[in-house]
């Protein structure tokens, strides 16, 4: 524990502080058909304020890696540090908010009640809960929907509410597992734009799992390309795109060049099987 704290302090001293680091990470599932290597020798560093996308076909371990960071899975070998401590300690310290594929709002709670849920669990005082709910609702542009029930909202609005819920307790890290996967293209574009604005305002570190190339390139400062069997990282692309990104940027040559490199990376991964 002491050494981990020391690591955290050392990392804090560096100019671009490392928030998440993985070294020689392996995860093997035992199944009835024998062992499945979900992650193989994964090394990765994520700096503070990065927007990192994980892209790859299904089975490449992108979701598994996110779950390892969130302490929802335990790696077989290797180390992961989140904020300089183990994922378990980070989870208990409420270091991250996790947004799942489905909004997963409780139908018996209003939107406000759903966002309040983690705050209640973490024991925030009542008045502060109300303040925070108002603040994050504003952040995801859902002010005025506090008293509505989830079924009264569209799919995109529900997913925004679930992002608000993950933001409510001020975690520095936002882990997002294909949050817009079930939404249509137009809604997705809109939410991507909003997410970028939100990221700029809150300066959080975001890890974002997706299987859409344009989404990954549009959103990220760093794109991690992964491939399956065994799940591993094949390419890490630092995006040269500016922080300010209108939707039109997707037609620029730089954008298309990065998209091309991602596609090449994905294809190279597939050549293995």
């Amino acid at each position, binding site marked *: 524990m002491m050494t981990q704290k020391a690591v955290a302090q050392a990392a804090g001293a560096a100019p671009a502080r490392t928030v998440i680091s993985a070294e020689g990470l392996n995860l093997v599932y035992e199944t009835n058909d024998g062992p499945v290597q979900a992650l193989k020798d994964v090394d990765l560093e994520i700096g503070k304020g990065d927007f990192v996308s994980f892209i790859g076909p299904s089975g490449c371990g992108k979701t598994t890696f996110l779950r390892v960071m*969130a*302490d*929802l899975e335990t790696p077989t070998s290797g180390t992961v540090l989140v904020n300089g401590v183990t994922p378990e300690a980070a*989870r*208990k310290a*409420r270091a*991250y*908010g*996790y947004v*799942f*594929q*489905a909004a*997963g709002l*409780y*139908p*018996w*709670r*209003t939107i406000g009640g759903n966002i309040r*849920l*983690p705050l*209640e*669990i*973490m024991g925030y005082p009542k008045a502060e809960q109300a303040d925070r709910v108002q603040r994050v609702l504003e952040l995801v542009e859902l002010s005025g929907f506090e008293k509505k*029930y989830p079924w009264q909202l569209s799919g995109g609005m529900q997913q925004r509410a679930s992002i608000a819920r993950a933001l409510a307790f001020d975690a520095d890290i936002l882990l997002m597992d294909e949050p817009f996967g079930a939404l249509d293209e137009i809604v997705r574009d809109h939410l991507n734009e909003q997410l970028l604005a939100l990221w700029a305002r809150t300066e959080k570190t975001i890890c974002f799992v997706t299987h859409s190339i344009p989404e990954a390139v549009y959103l990220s400062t760093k794109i991690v390309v992964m491939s399956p069997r065994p799940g591993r990282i094949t390419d890490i692309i630092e995006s040269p795109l500016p922080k300010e990104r209108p939707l039109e940027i997707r037609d620029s040559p730089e954008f298309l060049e990065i998209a091309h490199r991602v596609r090449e990376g994905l294809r190279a991964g597939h050549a293995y099987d």
Partner: protein
Amino acid sequence: MRNVIPVLTVVLAILVIWYGAAVMLNRQWVLDQAARQDRVLTTSELIAETWAQEKPKLPAPHQVAAELWDTVAMKKPTSKRSLVYHAWVTMSATVLGFGLGTLLGFALAVGIVYNQVMDRSVMPWVIASQTIPILAIAPMIIVVLNAIGISGLLPKAMISMYLSFFPVVVGMVKGLRSPDAMQLDQMRTWSATRAQEFWRLRLPASMPYLFASMKIAMAASLVGAIVGELPTGAVAGLGARLLAGSYYGQTIQIWSALLMAAALAAVLVGLIGLIQRITLKRMGMA
């Protein structure tokens, strides 16, 4: 208003079948009587007499209605001859047994969901308990409880409990397990305690299951209370009325007790339905 016509049609069909069956079943006795008295009956006389016997095989609806009117409306509710009094006695045991059964079922379900040992060991016993005919075990429960000095309402309620805890266990285990893996993972990302997970996720998620099981439990509980009154020679309750009716061939009394039991069940189950609607509405789920 749209419901009235179908309902009336069904009621009418039942009455027609009932009157017809009364003629068929009571006919032989009327014919025998007539033969003994050397009378020749016209068809209309025959039908009229099958509907007016004192101890018919199947009493006609109006006979049962008259008996019900006589024993429900014309007697003081505290009188032993009032069907309301007997229904009250049975209802007390039903409601007490239902309450105990629901509590027991709920407690067992929580144990099964949260404790692996209970998960593996309790369910087979719960199922086995329901394969024993209640008629066989009811007298033993009464005798055993009597031997340790418990008599009156509680033994009957215990039999009701025995029948009513089962649907609650089965329904609540299903209900408490209804949150999916994602919702449980989500609780974990917030480092929620088991108690928080129970009160904020599992319990509210199980509400629709709880009410469905409680409706079945209430009906089972009423059956239990009536069965509990049969072997004990109870002097009060709908079961006692049924038993006395069958001793003395009072079919009209039996049928009115049966209808009273059906009405009681409808009211009790309807009451749970009402609580269900109010609760789910307040939870925003209906």
